[in-house]
């Protein structure tokens, strides 16, 4: 009896540890990625966060209203998504379409609080920040709808994560898509730096709330 109890305790504890490992890894990895990102900006090359990594930082995404920023990695395979949001489509040209996907349990959890009008910023390797403004959020079924990249207007940023946010099912078909467009005003405001933006955020939030209230 006590042996089976012990077994139950250990297996549950293992499950808990494995479960907690995912968010912990996501948090710790972002710290390491910050270093790699600084390095790749300094050297203007792809620099891997750790020698055996099969991905590298390609951009930095910031959500001023939600006060978070994170390093975006190349590719959307399981390895890269465990450490940060992954970029599905290029950050090459200034007006190129960017599609970034992230785990809903970790990095892209805050996506549920993004609303049309919110601001997003993306930093390229050259250090330049590009401002975006959320134009729409919607829920799609990944089996019946694809990302039709030809029909997205130039300068679109898509953030993709799983939906519903609090579901336990890891293989669900629904995706939450945040669509944002390039906003030059946001970029100008941004030159002052991200930190001032973060401080400004409550004011911005209020303003948006009133807009939404109309």
């Amino acid at each position, binding site marked *: 009896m006590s042996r089976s*109890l012990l077994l139950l305790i250990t297996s549950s504890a293992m499950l808990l540890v494995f479960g907690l490992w995912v968010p912990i890894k996501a948090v710790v990895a972002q710290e390491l990625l910050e270093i790699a990102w600084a390095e790749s900006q300094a050297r203007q090359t792809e620099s891997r966060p750790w020698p055996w990594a099969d991905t590298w930082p390609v951009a930095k995404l910031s959500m001023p209203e939600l006060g978070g920023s994170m390093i975006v990695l190349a590719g959307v395979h399981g390895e890269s*998504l465990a450490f940060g949001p992954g970029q599905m*489509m290029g950050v090459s040209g200034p007006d190129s379409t960017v599609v970034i*996907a992230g785990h809903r349990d970790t990095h892209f959890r805050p996506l549920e*609080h993004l609303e049309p009008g919110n601001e997003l910023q993306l930093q390229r390797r050259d250090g330049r920040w590009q401002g975006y403004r959320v134009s729409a959020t919607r829920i799609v079924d990944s089996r019946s*709808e694809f*990302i039709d990249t030809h029909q997205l207007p130039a300068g679109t940023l898509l953030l*993709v994560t799983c939906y519903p946010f609090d579901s336990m099912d890891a*293989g669900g078909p629904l995706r939450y898509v945040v669509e944002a467009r390039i906003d030059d005003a946001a970029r100008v405001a941004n030159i002052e730096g991200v930190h001032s933006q973060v401080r400004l955020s409550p004011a911005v939030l209020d303003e948006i709330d009133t807009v939404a209230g109309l």
Partner: protein
Amino acid sequence: MMFSSLSSQHSAFPFAANPPTRAAAAPPETRCEYVRVRSAPPSMAPHGFGRGFSRSRGLSAGCSGRVRRFMEGVSLWMAMLLVLFVQPLYAEANTGNEDSAGTLHFVDGKGQWQEPALVLGSEFDVRVSGLIADSKLVRTFKNTSDDWREGVFVFPLPEKASVYGLTMKVGERTIVGEVQPRAEAKKTYETARDAGRHAAKVEQQRPNVFTTRVANIPPGAEVSVELSYQQLVSYRDGVFELTAPTTLTPRYMPGEPLAVAPQQWQGGWAVPTTEVLDADAISPFTVDVADVAADSHRASVTFTIDAGLLLAQVFSPSHAVATQQDGQVVTVEPQAGDIVMNQDFVIRWQPFAGQEPGAAVFHQQWEGEDYLLAMLVPGRAGKARLPRELTFVIDTSGSMAGESIRQAREALQLGLETLLPGDRFNVIQFNSQPHALFMQPEMATANHLARARQYVSRLKADGGTEMAPALALALQGQGKTAGEQADESTRVRQVVFMTDGAVGNESALFDQIRRQLGDHRLFTVAIGSAPNRHFMREAARWGRGSYTSVQDLADMSGPLARLFAAMEAPVMTDIQVTWPGQSGAAMEDSFPQRSGDLFQGEPLLQVVRGVPPAGALSVSGRLPGGGNWQQSLDLQQAASGTGLNRYWAREKIDSLLDDARIEGQEPDKERITELAVAHNLMSPYTSFVAVDKTPVRASESALLQDNLPTLLPAGSQPGMVRYPQTATFAPLMIALGLLGLMLSAAIALLQRRAYP
């Protein structure tokens, strides 16, 4: 840190905050299920915990009391954690019902893919006699739902098919359809549909893309629509070929989307664009085989071939077939029974070596008029090879991803092998933008060829299908110095265009080819399981070249070797056809009016009205060296044929459309309509409609529309990006772990209570 900011935001944004608009709303019952399952742990937890707590209070103090108190503390904290963790689950589960109704098609409130309520069956019955293949295509729509349904299905037919009949079968009754001008047919159909009567309509969207609509299919019942069409068997190098197309490769629609309104994703994935105004009509939803019912989208195929001569072999490069021979008549069926409609069914037959027909004449009298169809294969003209300038254009757009790009790469490598020293060549790939290997065509030296091979082996398929700039790049004439010009004047300029033709703006591209062609010749190679054969054939015709299709990697070398051989051999030009009697009327009524050039092994086909089967048809042409070539055909030996009038009418309509294109005018709509109605034919301006007399659906019961999807062509990857998997098992594992620990704590406490 990200997570701290996150949790603070949690409180700032209540869960009842504005739900996302345009979301797929989950129906209440789904949410209830969530609540039931997820809320079990918390409701159990405080309860069980409370009991344990009170019991431990009642226990006498002792040395084990400290341990117990410690256990209590631990389980209290774990219960707290569990409640905190699970709380958002049912909080979320209870809100969000006010999400606006889902606009997604084929997806129910649970976000589950919904199979269309209609099950589609197809039956091809093709009878070949001589050069004409007459097909009956029965589409069966079985309604598996409890509602009345209207079925909409977009489907392909052979690119030169003349559709001449429509019959609708409801139970035991058969209703014969008739040809009406397009707008009138639409009205007839819609009136009947709204009145609750059985009705069916088939209209032409492209010469090879049609839409069928069937109204008022009763719940649990079946309505079938039979289409009759005929087509000419293709004959080349002693091999006859016939195709039964089954599906469409999703097409790329260039131009800016017209609809500013939210994407509806209703009928298909495309919205009309500035360059393709009917994009939504030709792009049905494309799904995987696994996404339709197990008995839907299956086709039974039967070919009965009476070639008029003994056949050496009948085979299919696309499917395994079983053949049965009875004298001259061969019956062909797929070995596997019904085929899945994700790959075109191609069948080829071949007479014994040395017995390949060199000429054939068929005659038919229809409504007092004589119709003659003549086929003539010119003999081999000598081999005088000229130095060439060969440009390979390869489509690397997203629709080519998968098996198609492998085929195209292989085909291009084969093409590079045909280059000889002295030839010039270039390789151009295109998707959203074209990219050329060399700035201008280079000599075929070992070095350049090695570079080209490497370039080709690294080609990947991704992006859009912007054909126009690629064609312009391939067809441009380079400015050269006088000396080079003299050298270049004898050079044969050829463009090999490898693509699946998955574009919606065919017409604009034909115009461009016609304008920019110059002294080039354009050869098209159709790649993939379901290429747009109409585009391939017409592009080659406007490009004064020829068209070849390949089925798979194994089948590739044969057709391509023939194509490259034909490209190397000289071409017969200035072909003149003279019918006996040579009246003006006969000249005007013989088609094609301007015969194109003839490549080696290609037959010359002519159809004429008003010429009796007497005298001789004489054909003459010019060889590239300057020599003349002439052949005549005795018309008295004409065999009797059927359907020649329809073939003639179709050619006449095509010729009227061609004239309009060359002159840049609107086609003569009235004349085409008149011609189509007289010969009972489908055309861009006429549709078939069949309407029952008596209403069957009561006006109070609703009619739901079901847009049937087509299957993704075999071996191809979805043209667009799939959404990635973006969730982990972490929440599940944390919840299970906490639950397990809670349970063990409870058991441990109980054990202590039972055996102190």
